């Protein structure tokens, strides 16, 4: 029987390779890689997306946004506030819940499922239930409870004025907590019991053990959770756009909503793309940072 030459086998392998990888790669390249690259390119042009003229303007879009667009600095500030709160409260709440529920018992599994549930809900349904059920000035539970406690003066219209960003990020934290909890449970359970025994033998109290043993060993987990909270926070869109559309005069404008408006309301592809590139830079920088930090041996 004739054996195929090495070359023919190679060719056959290559064709199989091509056949298998071609379809998914094509979709990936056209609908993901290409648009992302185009974002970079478009950010250097002035274009409205419809007319055939594209004018190369170099860094003008960036300069105009940073220096001359008042909504940009507002949205940057709001986005940073939003992200900071999401990171801070998202990690702490997740860790606290994880500490309470780290052992895998049936009752703990039950509670874990409960705390994770908000993360499975559709953002709009969540936004709506918080908007009417809690934040509504007349019937909402927040004002309702305040009135019951006799603190009528503290009631407010939560989703307008200065309190918007905080109120919206609270909703986001609410959906993020369960995920953070699961991550920390995995992280906590990865810490060997021997270490706790050793700390006990060395006479360390519970607080000291927590600070000196547990927290450092949760470094990687915290890194991952923080990074995800950061990415979600910086690119947050759904809740803000649905609940306030950016608010009056940019009171709750965030970078992602500004980016969207630049394209769909003001028709400026270039500025929209410029904001996207800036977001991308932030994400890339912090992703690399987290990778580097997690590789070090502390």
């Amino acid at each position, binding site marked *: 029987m004739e054996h195929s030459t090495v070359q023919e086998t190679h060719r056959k392998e290559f064709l199989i390779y091509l056949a298998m990888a071609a379809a998914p790669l094509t979709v990936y390249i056209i609908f993901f890689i290409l648009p992302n690259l185009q974002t970079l390119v478009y950010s250097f042009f002035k274009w409205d997306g419809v007319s055939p003229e594209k004018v190369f303007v170099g860094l003008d879009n960036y300069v105009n946004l940073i220096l001359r667009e008042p909504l940009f600095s507002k949205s940057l500030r709001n986005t940073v506030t939003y992200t900071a709160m999401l990171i801070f409260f998202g990690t702490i709440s997740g860790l606290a819940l994880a500490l309470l529920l780290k052992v895998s018992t049936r009752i703990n599994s039950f509670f874990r499922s409960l705390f994770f549930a908000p993360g499975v809900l*559709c953002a709009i349904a969540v936004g709506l239930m918080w908007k009417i059920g809690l934040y509504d000035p007349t019937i909402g539970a927040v004002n309702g409870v305040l009135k019951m406690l006799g603190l009528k003066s503290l009631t407010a219209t939560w989703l307008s004025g200065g309190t918007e960003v905080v109120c919206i990020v609270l909703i986001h934290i609410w959906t993020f907590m369960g995920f953070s909890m699961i991550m920390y449970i995995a992280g906590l359970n990865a810490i060997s019991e021997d270490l706790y025994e050793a700390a006990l033998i060395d006479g360390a109290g519970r607080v000291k053990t927590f600070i000196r043993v547990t927290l450092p060993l949760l470094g990687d987990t915290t890194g991952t959770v923080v990074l995800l909270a950061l990415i979600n926070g910086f690119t947050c869109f759904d809740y803000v756009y649905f609940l306030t559309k950016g608010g009056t005069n940019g009171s709750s404008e965030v970078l992602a909503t500004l980016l969207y408006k630049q*394209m769909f309301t003001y028709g400026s592809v270039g500025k929209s793309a410029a904001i996207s590139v800036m977001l991308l830079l932030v994400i890339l920088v912090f992703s690399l940072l987290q990778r580097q930090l997690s590789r070090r041996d502390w």
Partner: protein
Amino acid sequence: MMIEGQRTLRILKYLIVALLAFAVLYPILLCLVNSLKTDKEMYTNFLGLPRQYRWENYVEAWSKGFTIYYRNTFIVTILSVAVSIVGSLLLAYVLTRKRFKLNPIIYTLVIVGMTIPPQISATPLYLLVKDLRLMNRYAGLILTFVAYRLPFTTFIIYGCFKGIPAQIEEAANIDGCGEGQLLTRIFIPLSKPIITAAMIFSLVYVWNNYFFPLMLTTTNEMKMIANGLVQFQGQYRSSYTLMFAGSVVAFLPLLIVYFIAQKQFIMGMTSGAIKG
């Protein structure tokens, strides 16, 4: 003495946990409870249980268009998940099994793609879909979702495939196993949990998605559940109970599925982020 003290602490701890759980689920409970009242009762008795359960509210809310929204979401989700999983399996298989010069490049593209959220490529994607005449069509949404799910799904399946020892492959080859069979008879069955996890994550992602349909559909006929709910609350905002009912109609089905398959859901939605 020691045991009793520990027991009290335990009970205390679970009391706190139960309280926290109630606080966390409160918004959902509030929504459920008030969706069953009449408007009048809601205004007078907001925080309490309904005196009469008005199940008709759900029927009424559903009739305002949710049949269309659910139909669209079903079609788009099932197709997107199916196509992206098949694509990921092929891609992951090729990346693990074949050594070609292109592999590291493809792998890097996959990794980088995992961290990039849709807002970054929003504008060009919109223009692209428009130019391809795929606006307001299932294909536009499906291809987009497939492209966006591919990196993460490929990554975790790749991790799983890589862990399959070479001996199994060799044994299969000796038994005369062809390429396709190797994939379907050996790799896939061995990776079932990971594949299930990937499917669930993608399912939730597509099902609840708001951003892509917002950009890529303009007619009510093509809206998915999230956008449908926006349309709904824009039109019927005069009745808060109806709006609550609409929310419930939007989130309850998936929530029920979640409670049935909790473990798989939780594993699916966190699997990529947990290393190993």
